[in-house]
């Protein structure tokens, strides 16, 4: 990566205020998921226009769009809340996740829109108390920042091409 490109996408290329709002969004997002609060997860997305995808890096690199989760409109993001809270209620074993994030890149796309890349590791703990890695990867986001930050689109790209269990909750 050239010095020019690096400086254009470094976290410090955007204002501290924007960074703070994005950091709050990321923290709220993982706090919601790690407490199985799907409505809190939903609140992280721009209600006018948003999308969420979760797919393997293997698919992503080959331009294959199939994902574990493919919510290409806000209605589908709302439906995912219903899958977990209503449709699947009582049919799966609970598992506790812990998301760990590290922002790596951020850049203004003009007006109040920003792109951001954030590495993640997600651990999960089953009923027996055993903790393992669920997935490692990178969020590729577009974020609207105007007093409060919301996800316009989030793509969770999993380096983990073979996940160790079925996934109830988004990443």
């Amino acid at each position, binding site marked *: 990566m050239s010095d020019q490109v690096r400086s254009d996408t470094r976290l410090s290329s955007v204002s501290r205020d924007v960074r703070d709002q994005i950091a709050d969004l990321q923290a709220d997002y993982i706090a919601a998921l790690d407490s199985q609060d799907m409505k809190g997860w939903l609140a992280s997305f721009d209600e006018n226009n948003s999308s969420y995808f979760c797919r393997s890096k293997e*698919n992503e690199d080959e331009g*294959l769009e*199939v994902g574990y*989760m493919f919510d290409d409109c806000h*209605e589908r993001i709302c*439906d995912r809340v219903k899958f977990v809270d209503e449709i699947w209620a009582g049919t799966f074993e609970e598992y506790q996740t812990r998301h760990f994030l590290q922002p790596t890149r951020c850049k203004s796309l003009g007006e109040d829109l920003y792109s951001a890349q954030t590495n993640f590791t997600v651990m999960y703990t089953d009923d027996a108390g055993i903790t393992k890695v669920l997935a490692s990867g990178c969020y590729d986001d577009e974020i609207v920042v105007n007093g409060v930050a919301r996800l316009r689109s989030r793509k969770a790209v999993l380096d983990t091409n073979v*996940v160790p*269990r*079925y*996934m109830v909750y988004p990443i």
Partner: protein
Amino acid sequence: MNAHSDLVTSLEWPANLNEIPKAVFDDPDLYKMELEKIFYGPEWQVVAHRGEVPEKGDFKRFYIGEMPVLVIHGEDGQVRVFHNACSHRGALVETKNRGSQLEFECPYHRWLFSSTGEMIGCPNSNQFSPGFKKENFGLREIRTDEYCGLVFATLSDDTPDLKEWMGERMLDPLARILGGDGRLRLLGYQKVNYACNWKAYVDNDGYHAPLLHPAFKLLNWQGGRGSQTPTENGHIVFEADLTMPDRVDLLDDPSLIDFKGTDTSNGSLVISTFPITVLTKHLDMLNVRFAFPRDNDHTEVHYAYFRHEDDDEEMARHRLRQASNLLGPSGMISLEDAAIFTRIHHGNISPGNAIFQKGVSDPRQLNFTPAQNDETGNLPRWEYYRKLMGFRRAQS
């Protein structure tokens, strides 16, 4: 190889055909025997579909049992399956899951192979053992056959002809699951490593009680008329009409369960081929679940989704949107299936038998025409398994 499990001699299989001894899920020696007799024995194993390797030079890495194989679309147009092991010292020839190239080089000593498996060259061969001939050192090819683009491989010379092995009853539904003529293109994968024995996976994928699926009820979506047809050699075909609800209040985006139904299905079609592969066509979603055991306690499943070559952009998009969110390891309908595999695996580490009930009118007879939701459809496969492994059945 001559694996043996003491369980085969010590365990007496119950006289009732609906009782399966749970001990068979938790015996590493038995698992080694299963690899030899079933995965490396005279059965066809599903390893790929042409839609994953559509162009010359395209390849896919996969497994038969625990053996690594390489599926290559050769420059002559034929799809072949090879052991993924260099003919020299046995290193993996290819480590990428998929790709496209006309030559395959083992990095260890730079032995080079063509897309049809012949050896092209090996440096310093003038110093090799007397009588060394390049033509004797191609990649080791595995017997293959195809049906509607689905690529089967077998390590045994004794395996019957593919169509005979599948049986007449399966040919038409299998073609319909594969888009009618097998002209498919890959949309992508979901891959999961389930912590369960391969038999627990296959016993509960394909067949599953509708009780498990609240989505059906919430959608006011009943199964409709349907049938399941088991074969004597362990395959099962499930077919069902789907009665679609007039309106879907539950979902904000009901397009998830749109049924465009352009072609070959009355809604729901599931085929389970012995030993481990499940194929489904549900609404407009075309799905092959390529699977293999990682060890006695783990089963890896690659859910591969396809579109038809003739699909217009709208239909291809619809299949993609349905594929990702409807079935599979996080699918609206099927998440509960995935949830049950591991639970069954752990529960099976307990004494006694798993007892199938629904539809069992005579525990001493196999039923080859079970009703749609009966548990009995799996029993011919268990009986086939018992005979293959050589378990003796109690007389009373």
